[in-house]
């Protein structure tokens, strides 16, 4: 059987899959940060184009992908699905391991799947510039790539610790014509406030989001774009899972286990929502869907399911999600894209309801798995992706014990070619296994005021 399972270009999905109408109960609505009342579309018009706002709240099961967007996606889509024969042999597992490789996109990750439509809808709405944040630089480089295609300017607030750790991501943004600013910066009020309190801060996604939102809200020609967390982002990423479903069907397979790493939840949603939909509809009830997160930022495994802000400054709507608290600054792990205090509300709900489950790993464990993957399958994965690799290997090893020939699918969300300093740290035994001291944190929060609606 083939190692690569490829789809013809004309088999690329023509529409995205929206899981919202298939949820057993509707999501709790996002709340306005000032009033605490459910959001209406007009609340979001200062920072998003109407088409994306409608997608965010849409209850249509499918949303058409515009032709112009499909044209750009065809530069790398459909992406290949691999059967990991070499990894299977190395692990001596009866499991069948498949991985969807999103590292073939120009920026090297799944991120342009949503950057391209977001840039397109903003261009159509007459917007001239987009402000955004980026953690590890995957999203920033993807949006730089996408805005340049549609003739928009782009300003990217990059989390300071990543800005220093990953200089080549910054260089990519420059090639694609975007401006990249280390966050927190003095360009915004929220950034200045953080710097004043703590000049040595490593920054965080939550802080960078505050800066980008403020930039967009205070400039008429500028909108904001988010690389994860929101429903419309997850919607755009469902091309991953939809392609997988067709690719697997072409070899008469269907996954028993679906795995993805989770920061804000979009690559995980992308690969898992089409399969979660089947699970909810009852066509494939037994699929085990696993979200993998870092032990240092264990939102789904140790967070609270509650309303919280999406950013540090409290500028975003309140979302009902798993959260570690919007003022939590996760430690500077190398998987910078997973350093986020919250998670997509739909992923949160599905984990809360038991449709999906979550596991967490330490840094050294995931790099060990990434090394195994690189030495068998060849691809050096991004530190974020290495979390999914770890969980996949562990599931495959369970199969070796039980003798079950399960079909395991994971999202190989990006390559790590710009993350080699993280691998260097692994080989120098300098990786720190950060933890989230859950009990102590809960005790420390006992006296804090409650967030409205929590």
């Amino acid at each position: 059987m083939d190692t690569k399972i490829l789809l013809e270009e004309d088999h690329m999905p023509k529409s995205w899959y929206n899981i919202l109408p298939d949820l057993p109960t509707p999501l709790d609505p996002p709340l306005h940060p000032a009033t605490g009342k459910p959001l209406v579309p007009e609340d979001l018009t200062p920072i998003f184009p109407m088409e994306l706002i409608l997608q965010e709240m849409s209850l249509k099961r499918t949303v058409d992908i515009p032709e112009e967007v499909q044209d750009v996606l065809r530069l790398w889509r459909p992406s290949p699905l691999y059967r990991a024969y070499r990894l299977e042999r190395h692990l001596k597992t009866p499991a069948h391991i498949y991985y969807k490789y999103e590292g073939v996109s120009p920026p090297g990750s799944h991120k342009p799947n949503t950057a391209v439509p977001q840039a397109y809808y903003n261009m159509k709405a007459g917007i001239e510039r987009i402000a955004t944040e980026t953690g590890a630089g995957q999203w920033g480089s993807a949006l730089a790539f996408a805005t340049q295609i549609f003739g928009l300017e782009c300003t990217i607030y990059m989390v300071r610790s990543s800005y220093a750790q990953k200089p080549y991501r910054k260089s990519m943004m420059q090639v694609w014509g975007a401006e990249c600013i280390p966050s927190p910066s003095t360009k915004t009020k929220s950034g200045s406030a953080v710097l004043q309190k703590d000049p040595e801060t490593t920054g965080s996604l939550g802080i960078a989001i505050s800066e980008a939102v403020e930039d967009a809200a205070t400039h008429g020609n500028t909108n904001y774009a988010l690389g994860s967390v929101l429903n419309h982002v997850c919607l755009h990423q469902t091309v991953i899972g939809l392609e997988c479903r067709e690719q697997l069907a072409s070899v008469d397979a269907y996954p028993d286990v679906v795995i993805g790493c989770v920061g804000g939840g979009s690559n995980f949603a992308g690969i898992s929502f089409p399969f979660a939909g089947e699970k909810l509809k009852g066509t494939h009830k037994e699929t085990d869907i696993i979200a993998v997160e870092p032990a240092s930022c264990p939102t789904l495994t140790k967070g609270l399911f509650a309303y919280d802000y999406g950013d540090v400054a409290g500028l975003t709507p309140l979302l009902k999600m798993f959260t570690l608290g919007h003022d939590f600054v996760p430690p500077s792990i190398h998987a910078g894209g997973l350093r986020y205090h919250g998670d997509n509300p739909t992923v949160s709900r599905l984990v809360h309801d038991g449709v999906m489950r979550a596991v967490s790993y330490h840094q050294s464990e995931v790099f060990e798995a990434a090394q195994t993957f690189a030495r068998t399958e060849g691809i050096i994965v991004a530190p974020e992706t290495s979390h999914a690799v770890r969980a996949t290997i562990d599931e495959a090893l369970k199969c070796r014990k039980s003798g079950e020939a399960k079909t395991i699918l994971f999202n190989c969300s990006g390559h790590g070619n710009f993350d080699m300093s993280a691998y260097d740290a692994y080989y120098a035994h300098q990786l720190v296994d950060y933890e989230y001291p859950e009990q102590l944190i809960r005790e420390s929060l006992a006296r804090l005021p409650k967030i409205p609606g929590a």
Partner: protein
Amino acid sequence: MCTIGFLVNPVAGMGGAVGLKGTDGMVEVARSRGAVPHARERAAETISDIVDLRIHLLTCSGFMGEEVLSGAGISGYEVVYRPAPGQTGAPDTMAACRAFLERGVDLVLFCGGDGTARDVYSVVGDSVPMLGIPAGVKMYSAVFAITPVAAAGILRDGCTPGGRFLIRDAEVVDVDEEAYREGVLKTRLFGVAKSPYRPGLVQGTKQVFENPDEERAKKDIARFIREVMEGTPEVLYILGPGSTTAAIGEELGIQKTLLGFDAVSGGDLVAADLNEQALLGLLHGDSRARLVISIIGAQGSLLGRGTQQVSPAVLRRIGRENIIVVATPHKLAETPLVFVDTGDRELDAGFGDHISVVSGYRVAQRKRIGNRSKFEHMGN
């Protein structure tokens, strides 16, 4: 065959359990506070592990070595120094070392603390390697094995047929005990000795960090622990020695002793500089207490060095689950393994393989605990 000079400073460590932070010149005070010597037991732990080795041992009479050797069933040793009856002291340690040198020993094995290390070094210098069995109040010098059992492992490496000692430079430092009792940590480099080691088994010289990042990290830790304390007002907190826990005191606005154990309740200082008896006195009834303790210097030692006030009895009363370990990322970066050395092996073993160390605001690091029994057989 190896020839080893072996001596015990019988009073080493006596000041620790009674809160004296050192025994130099304080033996009678320590005794009057009820301190009992335990250096012999520490030495016996090492010696009992090497009875099968073919070593020619030279020692001192009575408490200074002979009793430990005969107690372990070792014969054929030679007594090369006999102290005068009564209290032994630094002159005896030094005289014994001169006798060892005259007999051309390959190694001086001593049981004591930093004071003893200083006395041994002042005679042998770097002409002969020295190895310490830890038994003192303070062990900031790099000549000490992590535990008595680890010392035995090092001797086994060097004295089995075909084996050899790996030798490295090891700083001998001492702490100004007068200043130490006043709450000021003043270390000074006394000299650089030669010392045998197994990688990972001998403590590196303890360092006191003072760069800005380190201070910032201490403040972050302190702010987090203060919030935890505010969220648990019913808990009695005992803050251990060191500059990280001192930062917690500063954050709380209390006068924390730098080197002692202080008790805090409801944000107020309840008692300062507690010894073992006073700690046990505080830990009565059903009320919950937590111990906040740091890793000492770069050596990765927890609960063993300079913390004898927290005896196994105190720890059992507090409970392992109520121990919060704090350390700055800087310190942790130089501490690949944490060693738990309470003096009670069963209690040590109960800590498991890993320990979570609070290293910043709402952040912890997982550190591996060095396993003594594993090291005995596997090197590192």
